Structure formats: C-alpha cells, structure tokens
C-alpha cells in the first residue's frame, strides 16, 4: 500500500486530461483576467436549510433565477419521520415547520419543481437526484450541502456550496471557481466478502486523513472500484468531503449507463443514444497525470468502525481503541485524548467490546435500496439485542421505501425489532426529533461522528449497513466477515 506523488508537468499540454480536467473544461464559461473562472452549473439541487437566505437575497436585490429548469428542490433535513398524515401543518416543531413551509413558498413563487414532504419522490436530496435521473454523467451538480459530492459517482463534477453561492447559482447559473488539483485514489484487487463501499471509503479516510483531500478533486479508480455498483460508488463519492475534498468522481462505464437508463429525467430515444456516445468519453486519458496518487489493495480492507469524533478516527473491527500514548505528534495526541473522553472509551478496548444503545440505518451515505437489502439479509429471522434502546431504518426516499416494501424488507426489519420510518435525513444530524441521548453509543450508517452531531452528548460509530445490522443483533460490534464466511 505505497503512496506515490507524481508531479504534474507544470500544466504543460503534453499529458492527457483527467476526468476532472475534462469536466472542468467543458463547463468553463470564461477565465477572467485575475485567474478566477466562471463555471456553468447544469443541475442545482435545493433543500430547506441552506436556501431560505438565498431566496431572500434574490428578492432583496430584485433578481430572478437565471434558468428555472436547472433547479430541483426537496425537503429532507427537518422533516419528521413519523406522523406525516397532517402534512406540513402537522410538523410539531414550529421553527422546522416554518423552514419547510418557506421552501414550499419559495419554490411556488419562483416556479421551481419541488418534491414536497408527502410526495413519493421526496427524500434526501442526494438520493433523489440520481434516482430521478436529475443527475446525469458529464453534468456539473451543486447543492447547498457538502455531501453533493455523492453525484460525482456518475462521472459528474459535483460539490457542495454555501448559501451565498446558492444565491449566486440561482441568479447566474454559474459559480466563480478556482481549479482544484487532481488526486487519484486507486483501489485494485478483490474485496473480501461483506466489505462494502463504506468500508473502502472509511479505510481511505483513515489513510489520508480528513484533510488529506483538501484542495483536490478525487477520482476513484482501479479494478475494485470498477467492480462496485452505482450505489456503492455513490457511498464513496458521498464521503469524499470527509476526506477533505469537495468533489469525488468515478469514470463512466456500463454500470453507470445501465443505472441511468430509463430514469424519469434521463434522455430518451435518439437523444439517449447521443448522450451515451458522449458519456463514453468521461474517463481520464491513459496518459493523464495526477498531482497525487494513493494506492490501496482491496484485499487488505477489513470491516471498519470509527472510534472517535472525526471520520479519520477509524479502525478495523478486529482492532482495539488506539492508545494516545503511542502518538508522537502532541496536537494529534491531545485530539485523541479529547475524542476518547467525549466517547467515554478507554484506550485498548476491543472495538467489539463497545456496548451500543441505538442503531441507525439511514442517511445519504447508506439509505438506498442496496443498503437496505444488505442489512435485511443479515437481519432475516433474527431479533435485535434486548440491551438496545432503539433500532431504526430511515429509507433515503419515498421511492426507496416503496421498493423495499415491495420486496418485503420492511417486514424483515420490523420483525427483527427495527422501526420503519418515513424518508429524510433523520438521525444523521438530528435536526428533527430523531436524536441520540447524552452518552449513548450508536452504530450509524451515516457519515459524520462529530461531537453532538446526532444529538447533544451522543456518541456515533460509523459503519456499513451490514455492520450496523449485525451489531443490532448482538448489541455490540461483530466482525461481519464471520457472517459471510459462514454463509459462503
């Protein structure tokens, strides 16, 4: 697992282009005298939390959206995951209700398509874009949400933006950008049974750190990535921001094209053929040079569990909580000590010895149909540990929920003792009532284990859906490989 750094030829034109270079070049509207670039945005997704101030800004300046049909909105962060019969009026928290209603009003006023709370197409913004074919290969996709990197799985240039930029995109259909550097993360070989995109990504973050990708756009490549489904690729691109890079991407191949075909907003007929021909070019040239290259051997990757308060604080399920005493860097050591104190963990505790209080299967990282199938396959005929206070599944969208119900997955979860909820962000960030209590440990399929993220004083452990399901049965983490070995 060596890490190589190859210098770029000072921008000379001798080498080929990376996928990122191609996406950048095809969206460059203008390079200005000061070196800043105007980049055109094909798809702008909106949600209720980061958009109200942007719409207000438009109104105050007397501006109108540049191109209405490039926008697509939904409510996800604040929405309750139970009791939606009474619609928006039924949202108990008055401030959440106002925020949800404000997006509805803004979309009405400006004529933007919105999947409202009780629309079956509603869901987490990064789940519904790909699901509806609103995300297409070769696009630039932005949203006022850092996990917009998810959409890069389609060979798209996708990243999160702040609210001022949401307003900027609404008003101009462009962003002012500076080009990032190119990083290649190459994962070759075969993954062990039960190892998912989530484990691969956590292992990458553990290796390069949460600031490892700062200033870069990351392309994931190699035989192990080619072998992943679209949904697993989305999981990886999703957590690119946890590695510090705003954008992650995977080249287009048959897997991509098969996934996009026949989606409601995907091109059809002759236009489809034309689009596919163009999408086939969305890969890095063989002689493209990257500013940084990181290699991982797929066969080395074990099931991952985070132990601390940053996604880089992660280890193999078979390992122990690390000991800060072994860390030579004083700033890192202090960070580890602080994290262990917050997590209520002693150094050298086996990861499998951590007792859990709650299980959360959901979020834009892991709440698509494959994730639910994976978790259900572990839970079938099992029941969750009596020591747990709660286990819940929150599907990523109404469409995912309906599909899972057609397959009977909801029964498997409910019979095992899980709660089966309505779609939204839910306990990923606990803006709605779904939260951890103080000091509670949670096995969570989400993406951030920051202090207080899932609730005041809550303690998050990031894992894959299969790992979360197995942990639910036992009340503590177990090595999922054992399940697959037995089955295989």
């Amino acid at each position, binding site marked *: 697992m060596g890490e190589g750094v190859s210098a770029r030829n000072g921008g000379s034109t001798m080498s080929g282009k990376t996928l990122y270079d191609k996406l950048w070049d095809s969206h460059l*509207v*203008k390079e200005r005298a*000061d*070196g*800043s670039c*105007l980049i*055109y945005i094909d798809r702008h997704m909106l949600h209720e*939390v*980061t958009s109200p*101030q942007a719409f*207000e800004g438009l109104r105050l*300046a007397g*501006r109108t959206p540049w191109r209405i*049909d490039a926008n697509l909105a939904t409510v996800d*962060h604040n929405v309750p995951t139970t009791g939606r019969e009474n619609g928006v009026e039924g949202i108990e*928290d008055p*401030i959440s209700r*106002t*925020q949800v209603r*404000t997006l509805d009003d803004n979309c009405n006023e400006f004529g933007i398509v919105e999947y409202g709370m009780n629309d079956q197409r509603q869901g987490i913004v990064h789940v519904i874009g790909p699901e509806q074919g609103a995300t*297409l290969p*070769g*696009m630039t996709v932005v949203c006022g949400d*850092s996990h917009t990197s998810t959409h890069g799985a389609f060979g798209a240039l996708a990243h*999160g*933006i*702040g*609210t*001022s*930029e949401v307003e*900027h995109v609404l*008003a*101009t*259909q*462009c962003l*002012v950008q*500076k080009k990032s550097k190119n990083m290649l993360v190459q994962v070759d070989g075969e993954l062990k049974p039960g190892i998912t995109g989530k484990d691969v990504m956590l292992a990458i973050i553990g290796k390069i750190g*949460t*600031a490892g990708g*700062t*200033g870069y756009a990351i392309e994931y490549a190699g035989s192990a990535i080619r072998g992943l489904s679209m949904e697993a690729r989305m999981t990886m691109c999703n957590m690119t921001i946890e590695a*510090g*890079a705003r954008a992650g991407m995977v080249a287009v191949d048959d897997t991509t094209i098969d996934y996009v075909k026949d989606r409601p*907003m995907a*091109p059809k007929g002759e*236009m*489809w053929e*034309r*689009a596919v021909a*163009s999408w086939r070019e969305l890969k890095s040239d063989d002689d493209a040079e990257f500013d940084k290259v990181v290699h991982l051997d797929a066969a080395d990757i074990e099931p991952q569990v985070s132990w601390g308060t940053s996604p880089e604080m992660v280890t193999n399920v078979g390992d122990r909580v690390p000991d800060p005493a072994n860390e030579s860097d004083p*700033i*890192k050591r202090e*960070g580890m000590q*602080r994290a262990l104190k917050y997590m209520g963990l002693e150094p050298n505790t086996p990861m499998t010895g951590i007792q859990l209080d709650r299980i959360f299967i959901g979020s834009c990282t892991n709440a698509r149909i494959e994730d639910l199938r994976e978790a259900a396959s572990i839970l079938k005929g099992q029941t969750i540990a009596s020591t747990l206070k709660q286990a819940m599944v929150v599907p990523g969208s109404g469409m995912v929920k309906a599909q899972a119900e057609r397959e009977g997955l909801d029964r498997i979860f409910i019979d095992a003792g899980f709660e089966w909820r309505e779609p939204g962000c839910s306990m990923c960030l606990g*803006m709605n009532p779904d939260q951890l209590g103080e000091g509670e440990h949670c096995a969570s399929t989400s993406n*951030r284990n*920051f*202090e*207080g993220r899932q609730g*005041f004083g809550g303690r998050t452990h990031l894992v894959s859906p299969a790992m979360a399901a197995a942990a639910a049965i036992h009340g503590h983490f177990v090595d999922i490989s054992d399940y697959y070995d037995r089955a295989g």
Partner: protein
Amino acid sequence: MKAFTRHTGLVAPMDRSNVDTDMIIPKQFLKSIKRTGFGPNLFDELRYLDEGQPGKDNSQRPLNPEFVLNQARYQGASVLLTRANFGCGSSREHAPWALEDFGFRAIIAPSFADIFYNNCFKNGLLPLVLKEEEVDELFRAVESVEGYALTVDLENQTVATPDGKIYHFEVDEFRRHCLLNGLDDIGVTLEDADAIQAYEERRKQEAPWLFPAG
C-alpha cells in the same frame, strides 16, 4: 457585503485542530431562515454547560469556564487563532455567519476546509493561512501576553505582531479584490451575462439533453 481592508484586534487562541462546522454552530440553530443572530450560539456546546435551543435565553445559561471565549482576558476578541482543518464538515454558511455575528473579523490557521474558507469571503470574514511554525509562534505569544492584538492587512497581505514582526499570507486575487471593496460578486458575474448566454447556446448544440426545456 462588508469590506475588509485592515483590522487590529484582540486574539483568542482555540488550540484544537479539525474544528468542525457542527461545533461552530450546532444543527438546532440552522432552522432559522435569517442570516443574523447566530453569534450567541457560536461554539454552543463548548461554550455552555447545558444544551442550547433556539429561543432559549442564553444569558441565563451556565457557561463553561474552561472554554477560551469565556475567559476574561479574551473578552472582545475579534481575531481567532486556531489549528489545522478549521471549518471541516458541512457547507453551512451559518458557521461564518455565527463567527461574524459574534464579532470575529479574521481567523488564522495553518489550513481551512475548502467550503468553509470560500464561505467566509462572502461574509466579510477573512480566513488566512500562516505556516504551521508561525501559528505555533503566535499561540505561544498569545498565551504569554495578556491583551495580545494583531493587525491584519488585506491590502498588503500581512499580519503584524505588537513587537513589529510581520507575517505574509497568500490570497486569491479575485477574493481579495471582492473583499477589499465589499463587492457583490453576483453583480460582478452578471457583467459577463453575454458570455454565459453564448456558452448556453454552444452547449445546447453539443449536449442538448442538458436543456430539456429547450
């Protein structure tokens, strides 16, 4: 937008790396539909001993005496000195809004998360990168001298210490220009409306499926 040219202010040291946006402004405060009023809840979970909620009277809440911004010597601080990867996590612009609302004008760190860094410039807040050794030096100085203030000069891209030492920092020309002049960058972009339209016309030929509405 508020312009930033030159600022002299008391420095508060926040000695931890990877300060994330959930820490800067916890989620329950993101439900607001306004841009202002986030200051009292900046670093809420570190600053207070109880759990904060929107609408709660912050003046009645128990303060965490150990937290740097609660210490008497750092009252009125407007320059935040911190460690690597400040602002990592979500894209919430509520983070710079809260820092600005609290009274910070500049943040000094060895590195920042990309989206946060970008968001600061839109809000008259200057994030500036100094070398790791320089940040170390400043931490030592701030902790040993009460009332330690720095002068940040965006025009000249310098940070000056009370004893006359000068550090230099880099910043993009476009961002510097907008911040120095307090420019509305949407207005600047719209000066290129013709170029945007020309791009759209060309793209409609190349990739018509991206323009289903024609």
